[in-house]
């Protein structure tokens, strides 16, 4: 993977920058394509899906829908590399992700159904520590702006995360999206326990990400309110 920084590929209207300052940052990858080739996955005895082929290109979002237990989360974990597929492979720019290993991890931001935040740390510490873990260290101010962008006011930034509500914890986890410069976002039910205002903000953020040439795979059973030409639906129940 080359480290070249490309200039922004798509012209954004000016107001867009005012709304989403991070969309100005260019993504540092060349082609950007995530491809699943004849994937098969079973959990225990049950076959969840087989011969699954799907392609996500830059600027588009794959919405994975399906009944509970249809393998949505498993598919996302296969995409992240956490779960090796039983058969088939996941290709990033034509290369198997299990060969790319850390190079691939450096391309993605994964937010699972667990929030991945520490109850004993404050939201601010959670954001800065998880960003620096991910190798995208951010300043305290950057983290504060991200938390505010997702609707967590300043007094909350310094409370221990254990006193927050479910929705607030989810927001802390999702605040990373405002700081991430990674081209591929893998989100597992990002809208769970979010209120409508936060859902709108996250959707806007997703839109900005796609607009600057990013990719996203989102597991959800809600409709994602994004322009239909950018959204590709994959129903695992069918």
């Amino acid at each position, binding site marked *: 993977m080359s480290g070249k920084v490309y200039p922004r590929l798509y012209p954004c209207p000016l107001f867009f920058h005012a709304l989403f300052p991070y969309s100005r940052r260019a993504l540092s990858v060349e082609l950007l394509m995530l491809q699943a080739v004849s994937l098969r996955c079973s959990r225990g005895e049950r076959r969840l899906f087989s011969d699954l082929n799907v392609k996500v290109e830059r600027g588009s979002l794959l919405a994975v829908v399906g009944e509970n237990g249809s393998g949505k989360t498993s598919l996302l974990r296969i995409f992240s590399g956490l779960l090796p597929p039983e058969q088939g492979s996941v290709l990033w720019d034509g290369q198997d992700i299990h060969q790319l290993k850390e190079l691939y*991890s450096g391309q993605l931001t994964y937010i699972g159904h*667990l*929030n*991945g935040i*520490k109850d*004993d740390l404050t939201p601010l510490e959670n954001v800065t*520590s*998880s960003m620096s873990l991910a*190798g995208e260290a951010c300043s305290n101010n950057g983290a504060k702006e991200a938390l505010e962008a997702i609707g967590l006011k300043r007094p909350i930034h310094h409370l221990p995360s254990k006193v927050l509500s479910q929705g607030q914890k989810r927001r802390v986890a999702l605040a990373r999206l405002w700081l991430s410069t990674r081209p591929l976002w893998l989100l597992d039910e990002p809208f769970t326990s979010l209120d409508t205002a936060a859902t709108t903000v996250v959707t806007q953020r997703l839109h900005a990400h796609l607009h600057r040439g990013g990719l996203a795979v989102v597991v959800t059973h809600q409709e994602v309110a994004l322009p239909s030409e950018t959204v590709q639906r994959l129903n695992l129940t069918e």
Partner: protein
Amino acid sequence: MSGASMWEAIGGIVRRDLLLAMRRRSDAAMSVFFLVIVVSLFPLGVGPEPAVLRTIGPGVLWVAALLACLLSLGRVFTADYLDGVLEQMVLIPQPLAVLVVAKVLGHWLISGLPVVLLSPLLGLQFGLSGESLGVLVMSLLLGTPTLSMIGAIGAALVLGVRGSGLLVALLVLPLYVPILIFGAGAVTSSMAGIGGEANLSLLGACLVLSLFLAPWATAAAVRIALE
């Protein structure tokens, strides 16, 4: 991946673990208090005969240090596994073994280093001489990181298993036997006047071997746990 970013990742994980330990001081202090109490019980139970205490001292201190390490193994991965932080850590753009080394280093700093620092004081209770106290500290300094390294394999293997505390003891204690023999042996032989160097060298060899092999074994176990 460049070396600098690898050290950054290790530093980041260790700093975060230390910060978390500071927020939960009582948890971290528990294994140290356990060590102090267990070691102090022996003179009370066995009686104040100096010769007897001096004979059993090295063994008691080492067994207590080993059990204290065992008690704290649950903290290495379990909390991170339950709140999803481990998933995030596995997905950092670094080899998984690097993460393991960082977690083990954090574990040792929180539960191993205090044991090493307290050991001369506890050794005095058993009437160990100055020279043997020095050897005791050296043996623990070489031995406790090895205990943490080996323990991490067990801690990763039992992730997500109910009643994992006892299971990890069963898995890990047999592997601790050589460390215990060399560690206690170093102190005993220095008391006997033949010097503890041979045993200390063996402890050093164990440390190097575990540094080399344990991260990979642990990384494989973590991957399996997260599947």
